[in-house]
Each structure stands twice: as structure tokens, then as C-alpha cells.
């Protein structure tokens, strides 16, 4: 089938009722057993003969016998099989119910089973509708026409791709034998009736199924006792109390109250000596230390002494990848692989084999979150070990001693004194220049280029 490749992990959506689906699947497999399953036959539908068709009453009878229950209950199970897409009706294909009579059904191909890992998303549906439009111009059902118009608007930016895919699939379909094509069309149609149901089913049923899934997920989610989580909230407040300008005085003064921006000047990004309060805040968590770029610089000094700067460098590179432009991702991923992950890489990070394997494999098709696992691993390492060693280190103790403790200033409010400070655009440009210089300085030297330069001289 030329339809699609498996999508990246969206399994969370289905995990909670997987165990239900597994039971249904086991049942369906048994029903298809050539000896003990439901008896199928060839049926003529319009002009074409379709193989392996089963009747509703045969299905219900089989379930009644298998589960040793009444016909009504068997009918409900049958309806569940249809509602979840394991069996589809050939006539009245929009009504997903099991009828205990001579209505005709077929087993859905496992490719379209709901337990499969990909989700029926809008792009796929758009391709399907576009393909139907090619085949039978203007013969989409009213609700499908509405879907199509909506998708045409919402997915307009990739409509060329959608039309191209639809045309490809249509051509591929024409090359199949007619009975195969009719069967496949029925399967595909059934899949979409389930995932994009028409009117009454959509409005009434649709909110309930995903909602039930959501409740199941919520029940299974690990929760913490109130005393624990509320205790943590209180602890946070207590830790930061003296740092909150609304609860404790800012030193030397709150700029808004005294018109003096000394507080901001003392706490700028690249001061030589930070204030004592600022240094204390770095000790609250690794997050605080990393978020304050001055703190991160101090941390880097410590890491350099320990010859373990590659973890933080990798974390920073992964952040740049995550928050960078979509177009830069491929090149960034390549650089990261060469610098940190390749065998004998200049700044090779020491992560466990499994994570390394997953990451390297993921880098074959890089996306924004491809380094998540590795980044989390590295962050946890820094959080649980490196961070605490930093706090006990001479580097930190030294900066603690040297840090400034400004005296509270009782300045007169004077609107004329309000200094304009440095514009953020200027600061940003300065930082970008420094970053570029640092990157150039630490880039691995291209020995061949250097040698040829020397030779030429």
C-alpha cells in the first residue's frame, strides 16, 4: 500500500484502552479462523464480486455460541466490533452497528485497526477526500464536502502536496485489479467513516469516545498527595521570600520607587561581581543557575576546572535545536552529532548505550525534539550530581565571598535622574558577537587548511 509511513510516537492517545482493543483483536482473529471462525462467502455488490463477506446473523450466532450468552449481548459485542472499526458494513456503510440479519459485513484489514500506532490526522483525510474528488467529481457526501472545504482552508499551505499525494494514490489504485480495488476502497471508506464520522454519530458519539479515553488516562496518571505537593508550594514561597521585591526590600533600592536604576545596573548580564542575593539564588536550583546567564558562566568556570564542560555544552546545543528555526534544524543536528555523539567526537558525551542508540537513529530524520532523551539524561546528571559539587566547590565559595552587598539607598525621587540604560537591541548585538567569537575560537581546527595556508606562504 502506498498510503503512508508510520508516524512518530502518538501512542499516548491510545494507550489507556489498548487492553480493551487487545481483547477485541483476539476475538476478531478467532472469528477469522478458516475452520472454527465465521463462515464467509463471495457476494455480488453492484457489479463486482467481493470475497470473504459475512452476514450479521452469522456473526451474532458465532459470538453467542463462543461467549455462551444471549443474542442481545452478542449483538452489543458485535456493534462494538463495528464501532471500533474491526468489522465494517458493506451496505448502509455510514451506520456503524451490527444488525442481526442478512446484512453484509467484512473484516477490516489489520492495517486500519485502531490499535495501530498512527493517528488519522487531517492531512490524511484531506488526501483521501481529494482522491475521491478525482475519481467521482462532485460526488462527495454533503458532510464530506463540508470537511473538504474546511480542510482546504485550514491546510491551504500544503494543498499542493495533498493534491500530489491524492493523484499518486489514485494512479496506484487504477493499476490494481478491479476486485482488489473495490475491496480496498471499502476498507478505506470504512476507516474514514469511523475516524471522521458523518452527522448524528459525529455530534453525539464523538465527544464521548475521546472523553472516556481522557478519563481513563487521568485515572491512570500518577498523582501526589496534597500534603506533599502543597508542602512544596509553601517551601518555594519560604525559599524565595527574601528575594521577592514586594515582600523584602530591594538593595540598594527598587528603581520604580526611587528613580535610580542602580539595582538593574548591579544585576546586569555580564557584571564582574554579582550581588550576594543573586549568588544565593543560584543555589536554589539548577534551573536558577542556568537561567541566570551570569550564573551559567560561573558554572562553566567550575566545569572547565573539572574537564566536564561537554555536558552543559551539549545541553545548550540541544536547547538551540529545540527553539531554533525549522530551516536550521538539519545543519544543527549534523553539527551536534559530529561534536558530541559520533564515535571519537571531540566533545563526546557519556550517556548510556540505549539512549545513545535511540538518539543516533533519530538523527537520521532530525526533528525538533530528537535530542530530548539525551538532553534529559544529561540534565538529570547535572542536576543530581554536578550541581551539588559546584555548590561545595572553591569556585562557588569564592564568588560568594567576593559578591557585592549594596547598602540600602534612600534616594530622592527625581524624574530627571531616570537613566535610559542600554537598549536591549545593542546588548543583544554585543552578545551575538561574543558568541560568534567564542564559537570560532573553540571550533576544531582544520589541520589540512592550515597546512596548505602555511605551504602557500
Amino acid at each position, binding site marked *: 500500500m502506498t498510503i503512508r509511513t508510520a508516524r512518530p510516537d502518538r501512542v499516548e492517545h491510545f494507550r489507556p484502552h489498548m487492553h480493551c482493543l487487545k481483547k477485541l483483536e483476539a476475538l476478531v482473529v478467532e472469528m477469522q479462523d478458516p475452520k472454527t471462525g465465521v463462515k464467509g462467502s463471495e457476494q455480488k455488490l453492484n457489479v463486482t464480486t467481493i470475497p470473504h463477506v459475512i452476514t450479521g446473523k452469522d456473526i451474532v450466532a458465532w459470538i453467542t455460541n463462543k461467549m455462551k450468552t444471549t443474542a442481545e449481548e452478542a449483538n452489543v459485542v458485535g456493534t462494538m466490533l463495528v464501532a471500533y472499526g474491526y468489522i465494517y458494513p458493506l451496505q448502509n456503510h455510514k*451506520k456503524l*452497528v451490527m444488525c442481526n440479519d442478512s446484512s453484509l459485513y467484512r473484516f477490516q484489514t489489520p492495517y486500519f485497526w485502531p490499535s495501530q500506532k498512527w493517528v488519522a490526522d487531517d492531512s490524511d483525510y484531506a488526501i483521501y477526500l481529494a482522491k475521491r474528488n478525482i475519481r467521482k467529481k462532485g460526488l462527495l457526501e454533503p458532510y464530506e464536502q463540508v470537511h473538504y472545504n474546511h480542510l482546504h482552508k485550514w491546510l491551504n499551505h500544503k494543498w499542493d502536496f495533498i493534491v500530489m499525494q491524492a493523484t499518486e494514490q489514485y494512479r496506484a489504485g487504477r493499476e490494481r485489479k478491479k476486485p482488489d480495488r473495490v475491496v480496498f476502497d471499502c476498507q478505506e471508506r470504512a476507516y474514514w467513516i469511523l475516524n471522521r464520522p458523518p452527522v448524528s454519530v459525529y455530534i453525539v*458519539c464523538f465527544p464521548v469516545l475521546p472523553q472516556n479515553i481522557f478519563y481513563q488516562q487521568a485515572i491512570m496518571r500518577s498523582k501526589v498527595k496534597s500534603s506533599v505537593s502543597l508542602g512544596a*508550594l509553601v517551601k*518555594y514561597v519560604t525559599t524565595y521570600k527574601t528575594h521577592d521585591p514586594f515582600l523584602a526590600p530591594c538593595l540598594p533600592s527598587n528603581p520604580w520607587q526611587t528613580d535610580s536604576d542602580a539595582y538593574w545596573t548591579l544585576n546586569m548580564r555580564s557584571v564582574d561581581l554579582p550581588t550576594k542575593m543573586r549568588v544565593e539564588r543560584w543555589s536554589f536550583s539548577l*534551573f536558577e543557575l542556568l537561567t541566570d546567564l551570569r550564573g551559567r558562566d560561573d558554572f562553566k568556570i567550575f566545569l572547565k576546572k573539572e574537564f566536564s564542560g561537554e555536558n552543559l555544552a551539549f545541553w545548550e546545543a540541544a536547547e538551540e535545536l529545540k527553539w531554533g*528555526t525549522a530551516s536550521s534544524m538539519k545543519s544543527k543536528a549534523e553539527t551536534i552529532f559530529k561534536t558530541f555523539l559520533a564515535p571519537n567526537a571531540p566533545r563526546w558525551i557519556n550517556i548510556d548505550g540505549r539512549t545513545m542508540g535511540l538518539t543516533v537513529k533519530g538523527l537520521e530524520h532530525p526533528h525538533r525534539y530528537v535530542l530530548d532523551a539525551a538532553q534529559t539524561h544529561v540534565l538529570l546528571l547535572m542536576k543530581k550530581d554536578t550541581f551539588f559539587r559546584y555548590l561545595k566547590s572553591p569556585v562557588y565559595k569564592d564568588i560568594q565571598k567576593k559578591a557585592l552587598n549594596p547598602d540600602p539607598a534612600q534616594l530622592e525621587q527625581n524624574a530627571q535622574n531616570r537613566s535610559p540604560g542600554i537598549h536591549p537591541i545593542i546588548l543583544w548585538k554585543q552578545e551575538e558577537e561574543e558568541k560568534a567569537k567564542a564559537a570560532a575560537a573553540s571550533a576544531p581546527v582544520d589541520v589540512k587548511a592550515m597546512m596548505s595556508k602555511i605551504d602557500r606562504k
Partner: protein
Amino acid sequence: QKVLVELKITFSQCSKNERNYKTTSRKYMRSPLSPEMATQEVQLNETLAHLKTESENLKSKLEEERAKLHDVELHQVAEKVEGLGQFIMKTRRTLKGHGNKVLCMDWCKDKRRIVSSSQDGKVIVWDAFTTNKEHAVTMPCTWVMACAYAPSGCAVACGGLDNKCSVYPLSLDKNENLAAKKKSVAMHTNYLSACSFTNSDMQILTSSGDGTCALWDVESGQLLQSFHGHAADVLCLDLAPSETGNTFVSGGCDKKANVWDMRSGQCIQSFETHESDINSVRYYPSGDAFASGSDDATCRLYDLRADREVAIYSKESIIFGVSSVDFSLSGRLLFGGYNDYTINVWDVLKGTRVSILFGHENRVSTLRVSPDGTAFCTGSWDHTLRIWA
């Protein structure tokens, strides 16, 4: 009388108040029922009844699970905490320059500059410390309901009734026409209610009256992820402050506050305890909880780890809705801007109101605490912004 008339006009203009929020493309035409379809309809209804019972059962099971872990109330834990003293919070700056209602504002990371947007389509960048206006842009639409400052300080984003979010790179040259370099990034099918840059200038998160949130790549305008799950207009959003930075919370007219995973687009937690539209959501500084403000005149605190609402901040005398909330740096104080022109300051732990601030002459529409917590800024329908400290 003047105020009432103004309110009436603005109600009809602002589509947020229309209950008929669903666009025509979401309404489906029913096909005529035939007799045989009617019998199948009956069977279908039985299936639905079964699903609905399952739904009720699951819901009560979830409540049961939550109740088991609910061993203490917030104010009980807070009993051991020191009480707060008296507060002297005054207006330290008043920023005048907008010609109409101020709808939104955001702080620059430099802790002194802000961007604000208003109903007349103007977006202004101010150095709030000196009260100088640095830039002004006129948007092609009115009701600019959302604006945001880029983390680098080099650009701003804004949008509203144009259904888009556009990014304007800022310049050191005051005479430069910023509109010339404007970049259209997000496209929704209804008004833009909120926008926020992520950790870099390269991505924007938006929420819209079309019921969805979306993550966009600024450079290409590409949609990176969309978030579906709200049943009505989404009015607000806030990004989590954690080092992993992968979740955000949104609030909507469906009274729900949803927590989303930015990577997968999945809604990972949902809270529905408010009695009316949620106008504002804001994370607690630790990222383990968030507060919400609603038209039902209450602010609420939700604990993400315990998965439930843990506090309601309300008073009988407070009748009008909350438009905007934010925490002080330590998370001890919650500031709320209200539609009755006041600002109420709440003790987050003890649940009491510690201060009420007057000054604005019309409803407070937006409120944000500065990045270093030294002040908070409010924007109002009285056309001004005020800095309080």
C-alpha cells in the same frame, strides 16, 4: 450613562461574547431520515447510552482517586506560615498615549520596557522607567487583543481581529517604519486572543477564538503543532517555566483550563471548576501549579501534581470578572485585575485578600508582573497603563 453606552457598543463588536462562536464550516447539515435509518438510529442510541454510562462511571472513579489523595487543605498547610504585613503599593508611572482601550501588554526581559496594544489598532513600545514612547505601529485591524515582547528584546508580536499574529522587528532608529519589515506568522480562522514567544525569538505560541492553540515557526510561518480540545474560544495561555519548557496551559470560554504537551499536541491535564469564561491563566513560579481568573469573579489555584483545584480567591463584595492574573516573584502574592476597575492582591497561601488598589477609571484589562518582580503593570480601558510598586 456614557460608560454603559460604551459597553454596549463594545459588546457587539467583540465576538468573544457571541455564543454563536462556531464557524459555519463546523456546522453540519443533517441528512433526511428514512424509516429504516430510524430503526438503526435506535440501536445507535443504545450504544450511546452505554458509552455515556461508561463516561459517568469513569468520571466518578476519577473523583474517587483524587479524593483519596486529598489529605489536607492549602490554608491548613499555610497555618504555620508567617502572616503578611501591610503593603504600600502605589502607582509609580502612568503611561498615556493610547487613543483607546488598552487590551494587552507584555514586559521586555530588560525589566523596564513594555509593549502594549489597544482597540484603536495601535501597538506602542515604551521605556516604562522613563515613560518615553520608543516605537509605535498601527495595525491594519482594530482590537489588537494580544501582544508579546520577544526574549531578545529585538521584536514584538501582536494580533487580534485580523486572525493573525504578526512579528515586527524593532529598530534603534526611531524614525524607521516598522510596518515595512512586518512578518505575518500565524493564521487562525477566528480572532487572536493571546500570543507568546517561547524560549527564543524563533517560535510563537498562539490561542484563538477558533478554539485552538498553535505553535508556529517565525521564520517560515510554518505551523509546527496545533492543539485541539477546547470546545469554545480559547482566551489565554501561559508557558511553563520549567527547565524542560515543554508544556503550557490555556483557558477558554468552555470554562476549562487545559495543560498541553507542546511536542505531541496532546492535552495532558484538564480542569473544569470555574463557572464562566476563563480570561487569564498564569503558572506559579515553580511550574507545579497555575492560577486562573474568570468572569465568575473568582481566581483559582490548581495544583498540577495533585491534579486538582486547591484554592478559590473570592469575596462576596467582588462581583465583577477577573480579566488578568499574575504572581509575585516568590508566588506568595497573586495580583488580579478586575472589571470593576480595581486590583485585588491575594495571599496565595492563606487565601485572604491583603490589599485592594484603586486608580484606573475603567476596567483593568491586562496585568503582568515585571521579569524581576520589582513592579507590576496594568492596562485599562481608560486608555492608560500604570506601573505599581
